């Protein structure tokens, strides 16, 4: 794995790395590639590649732990020291596009002799849609939802309890992550990577050290700012400015936030969840509401760009590894989680994609440029101020959606 800013990289290497590190490119892979100026043909090729691979929904019928399968698994021998149940020979994983170490899948296959079918999705709606399609995980063993989905997945019976005895590497998790609010005791999920929300700006156009959300309401930057096309994130930004909770369900508070967002809208060039990176790089806007990973990618093309986690407080998010209730290969799935919690494996992923996880064993092996950047690895005091977006009940979410639509219309 080459260092990210080695000057001697070939175009292909550079492109590969960009895509690999593009956590949010998974959101709109197409747009990103096109905007990077890659030829249309390349885009189509990449789409074709992305769509390759076995269809997981078709497979569970043909596989399953048949007696024959288990004997062969024993023969090929997994080097399990403790009396671990024999793992199945296959595993179906569903994750964001380009959101894992370069050779994590290959190394897992080599170590356990388990064939991994690794499928990608580019946005959350397609992910959730597929997982919910059959009420038990769409044929996948492992998938990676945002932590905010965990409670509803438990209620719906979409995911199964995790057998902690099969995952000794859980001890690698930082103490603060041993029992997160969204899933006490990590009973159904294991934290993967995390990020923050803030905004990026171009110091060429804007001097000074910005810290407040209010900067995104500055009328002197009319038509030079963008907000995320994400109703929860926008309402959170407004809530922080007003000193309210980003998870409020109080209608009067929501109306106040809406008022604030309505003041901001005429100043904005656009709302986008896909183009914030390219438009900062191409100087279409000089300030953009974005996720920490977006900023990391912006700096690959424009190192001068800055990012801040606003002082009024902001959003912290993380995703988790879960095992589907209908997982055809539950033992292999536990091995997968354990493998990804290994310090070396987790650090290799972080160094490749630029996102940190709550893995203490990985910390010494994470590249300094990630580890030492307070914007990517915030100190405890800052972290304590960050709030996670909570799952909203349909009725509450509808109040957000209605106001968001009124704002957009």
């Amino acid at each position, binding site marked *: 794995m080459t260092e990210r800013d080695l000057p001697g990289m070939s175009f292909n290497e550079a492109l590969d790395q960009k895509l690999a590190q593009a956590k949010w490119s998974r959101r709109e892979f197409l747009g990103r590639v096109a905007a990077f100026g890659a030829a249309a043909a390349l885009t189509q090729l990449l789409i074709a590649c992305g769509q390759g691979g076995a269809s997981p929904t078709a497979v569970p019928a043909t596989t399953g732990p048949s007696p024959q399968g288990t004997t062969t698994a024993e023969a090929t021998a997994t080097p399990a020291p403790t009396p671990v149940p024999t793992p199945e020979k296959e595993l179906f994983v569903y994750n964001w596009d380009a959101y894992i170490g370069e050779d994590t899948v290959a190394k897992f296959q080599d170590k356990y002799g388990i064939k991994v079918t690794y499928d990608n999705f580019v946005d959350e*709606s397609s992910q959730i849609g597929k997982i919910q399609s059959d009420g038990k995980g769409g044929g996948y063993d492992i998938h990676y939802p945002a932590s905010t989905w965990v409670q509803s997945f438990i209620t719906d019976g979409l995911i199964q309890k995790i057998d902690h005895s099969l995952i000794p590497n859980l001890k690698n998790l930082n103490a603060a992550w041993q029992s997160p609010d969204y899933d006490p005791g990590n009973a159904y999920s294991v934290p993967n990577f995390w990020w923050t929300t803030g905004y990026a700006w171009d110091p060429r156009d804007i001097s000074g050290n910005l810290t407040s959300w209010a900067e995104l309401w500055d009328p002197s930057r009319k038509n030079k700012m963008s907000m995320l096309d994400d*109703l929860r994130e926008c309402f959170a930004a407004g809530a922080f400015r007003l000193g309210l909770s980003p998870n409020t369900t109080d209608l009067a508070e929501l109306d106040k936030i809406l008022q604030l967002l309505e003041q901001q809208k005429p100043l904005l060039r656009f709302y986008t969840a896909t183009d914030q990176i390219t438009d900062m790089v191409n*100087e279409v806007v000089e300030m953009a509401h974005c996720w920490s990973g977006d900023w990391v990618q912006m700096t690959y093309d424009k190192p001068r760009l800055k990012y801040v986690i606003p002082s009024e407080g902001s959003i912290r998010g993380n995703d988790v590894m879960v095992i589907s209730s209908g997982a055809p290969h539950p033992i292999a799935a536990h091995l997968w989680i354990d493998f990804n919690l290994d310090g070396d494996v987790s650090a290799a992923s972080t160094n490749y994609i630029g996102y940190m996880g709550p893995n203490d064993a990985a910390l010494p092996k994470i590249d300094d440029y990630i580890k030492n950047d307070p914007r990517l690895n915030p100190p405890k005091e800052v972290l304590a101020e960050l709030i996670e977006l909570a799952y909203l009940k349909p009725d509450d979410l509808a109040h957000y959606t209605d106001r968001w*639509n009124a704002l957009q219309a």
Partner: protein
Amino acid sequence: MTAAATPADVESARGASRESAGTRSAAAATSVLVLPGVAWLGVFFLVPLAIMAVVSVGAVDSAGHITLANPSLRNYSHALDPEFIPALLRSIYYAAATTLLSLAIGYPVAYWISRYGGRHKVALLILVMLPFWTSYLIRTYAWVMILRDNGVLNSVLLDSGVIDEPIPILNTDVSVILGMTYGFLPYAILPLFVSIDRLDYSMVQAARDLYASGRGAFIHVTLPLTMPGLVAAGLLTFIPALGDFVTPSVLGGAQTTTIAKLVQTIFTAGRDWPYGSALGFLLMGVTIVGTLVALRSLRREVMGASA
């Protein structure tokens, strides 16, 4: 619906019964030919539509699942909320502007290909359809590169000294209408071409022989006779343009939200399929009524011309 059933249906029913008397066996034989089409539309259009109709009277329960426990028209009354009106009007404005521009640009092109294309007609038509060889999304992103502040267009204007400051074109009404017109132009040109190409040019010559000016012959002969093509081209442009959300989301900005984008938000971020379906049906209703009005005015137009 009753209004729509009056003259048109009666007329077509009368026509059908007259025809079936003579050519019943032929009709039976040819009806086999439409079976694949009917089956295709039935499975992939009507069934999903029926599912949507059922979902639209449902609700989302506390676990986020669609429930039909208490079917009601609540979603429809919710969808009539005036908050959508600005976005709806904007969508209609974009679609209308796109249609007018497409017809204004497309008619001369189709006319020229038909009248002066000669033996190159097929090649010229292929050129019109050439953009379809590449994904629409990619072509729209190409417009981003052309229109953005430091893009091709602004660079050319700056370098040639026409402007001193880049003019913001991207993320405005202009970029949305421009992008949609670009995208829908081929859909306008093709039906226009068919209708112009079918025009018997001796009619125009007859008009000229009877001392009609060039403009007079065009207005009183060519235009009325190609009106069906104009209406078809207009509908083929207007209806998809009204529902287009790719172009406004790629080329548009914070001030250009269309109704299609709001429907999409309700389905995805809002996770409220029943509400989204109801809004979708209302939009479909608006479109159908608009189409019927357009078709009826066409019939009047054509009958007026032939009378």
